[in-house]
């Protein structure tokens, strides 16, 4: 039971990261390999804000994602834009290179042992929920990520902007013809997706150390989440993210050795039975 709850916390990170990947993939057709590195950047920006500017946790929750989002916008404008005409695989490789650069730079500057980041005072302490002691901060993480996921879903599925986005995915030329500035929309989407990753990074900062390699392995799991959920599907990535966190938590109880493998086993199964993913459209 308590492992379930922990799974849900992990799941909220999976969900936020895979959500960002999904909207980027949906519109840009780009697998953003730099997502893990940008998640790490989010955490580091929060840490740097505290260290160098004495800006605390709460403002960082807004500033860090915005800063990283802007950085993402710059990346998209400067590099990714040039690659839309060639095979999408090149974009994958380009973001992979970017991930190496970002991670290498941070590692050079801050080493790889990680920097501590304190839990904000208001969220110190824990609730005793009977079957376990739930630290307040972890409860907060679940809450924030649910809100963030719901907000993103609402924007893409229920607003006019979202309908442009979805239409742009289907047929960019036609949408362009209707007078919508598709390139700008693409840039903003990339910024938004990256911002979500950074938000997840800030949320993770007090739970673990802020570490240059923190995104490195997480990103691969998140890829699996996206594949299972169906590439580009918003709802799919949210639901799968949380669900896989829980499944992983359950495996930890019954067969801890397999807890990391189970996601990839599921991925293989899903691909065999339903290659487009659980919530994906057929190609």
């Amino acid at each position: 039971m308590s492992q379930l709850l922990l799974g849900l916390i992990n799941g909220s990170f999976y969900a936020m990261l895979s959500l960002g990947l999904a909207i980027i993939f949906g519109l840009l057709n780009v697998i953003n390999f730099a997502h893990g590195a940008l998640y790490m950047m989010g955490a580091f920006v929060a840490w740097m804000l505290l260290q160098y500017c004495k800006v605390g946790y709460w403002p960082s929750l807004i500033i860090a994602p915005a800063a990283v989002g802007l950085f993402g916008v710059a990346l998209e404008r400067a590099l990714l834009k040039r690659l839309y005409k060639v095979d999408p695989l090149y974009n994958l490789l380009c973001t992979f290179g970017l991930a190496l650069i970002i991670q290498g730079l941070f590692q050079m500057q801050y080493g790889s042992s990680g920097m501590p980041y304190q839990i904000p005072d208001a969220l110190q302490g824990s609730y005793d929920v009977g079957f376990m002691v739930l630290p307040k901060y972890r409860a907060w993480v679940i809450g924030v990520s649910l809100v963030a996921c719901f907000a993103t879903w609402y924007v893409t599925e229920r607003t006019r902007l979202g309908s442009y986005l979805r239409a742009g995915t289907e047929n960019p030329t036609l949408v362009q013809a209707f007078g919508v500035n598709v390139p700008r929309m693409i840039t903003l989407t990339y910024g938004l997706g990256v911002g979500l990753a950074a938000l997840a990074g800030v949320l993770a900062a007090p739970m673990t150390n802020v570490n240059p390699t923190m995104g490195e392995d997480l990103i691969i799991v998140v890829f699996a989440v996206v594949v299972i959920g169906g590439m580009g599907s918003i709802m799919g990535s949210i639901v799968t993210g949380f669900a896989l966190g829980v499944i992983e938590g359950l495996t930890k109880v019954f067969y801890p050795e397999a807890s990391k493998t189970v996601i990839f086993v599921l991925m293989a199964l899903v691909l065999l039975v339903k290659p487009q993913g659980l919530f994906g459209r057929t190609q």
Partner: protein
Amino acid sequence: MPRFHVVTFGIMLGLLIAAPFVVYPVFLMNALCFALFACAFNLLIGYVGLLSFGHAMFLGAAGYAAAHAAKVWGVSPELAVLFGTAVAGALGFVVGWLAIRRQGIYFAMITLGFAQMIYFFCLRAKFTGGEDGIQAVPRGHLVGFIDLDNPAAMYGFVLAIFVLGFLLIYRTVHSPFGHVLQAIRENEPRATSLGYKTDHYKLIAFMLSATLAGLAGGTKALVNQLTSLTDVRWQTSGEVVLMTLMGGLGRVTGPVVGAFIVLALEHYLAPLGEWVTVIKGAIFVVCVLAFRKGIMGTLGGALKLPL
């Protein structure tokens, strides 16, 4: 073999035979293993157009298998390498059978997923030694009497394996089978409509690539007398993409050049620490943006030669 390729190949072989007198042999042997690994990878991406982002699983699985066979079962080195190669080939069959159903990015993701599965298996399984890896693997005696602890003999052994693997790839690429593969890369529906069972071709190419990657992995385990998790990590899969991309996709000699350059970077810039990662990343970005044909591709284009 056209005369030009014979000349190229002769020069390459000459350099490789002379190299250990100038360069640290252990480094060279590692570079040869990675060159073979990259050539095997290139067979897929360069000639079938499939980007596998999990090729390290074949390198690592074969490494673990060969190391285990040599250390625990005490078999001779050539059998250990063969066993490793066979394991990689079998793994290649299973993964390939599942993965070739999809193309492009999906294919890359699926191979990556399988590679992670293998990674966690190697992390958790008892015989792989977790974070320790399999250490102190004996090099043993080749066919019973050639002592591979002698650096010259070991180098000869590795060079022979590399040359065999390289020639096999060369032969495959320039055979009718290879031409069908390239037809699939250019236009799969057309190849299908011409009556080729493209899935069969893709699966065979995938298995061949996996097997040769395994050959490289098994040999590498003996060279370093160690197999560790680094060999199965996804970063290694990324590295082989970098080697191939930098050398030139779909050029026979490209991956060899790429592998040597990347390893030389890592080896000689190691005192710079994390700069190596940054430089590798920058090379990736530059290659992708401006230099998609790679070194040998660009060079070949400039000289109008099939390098």
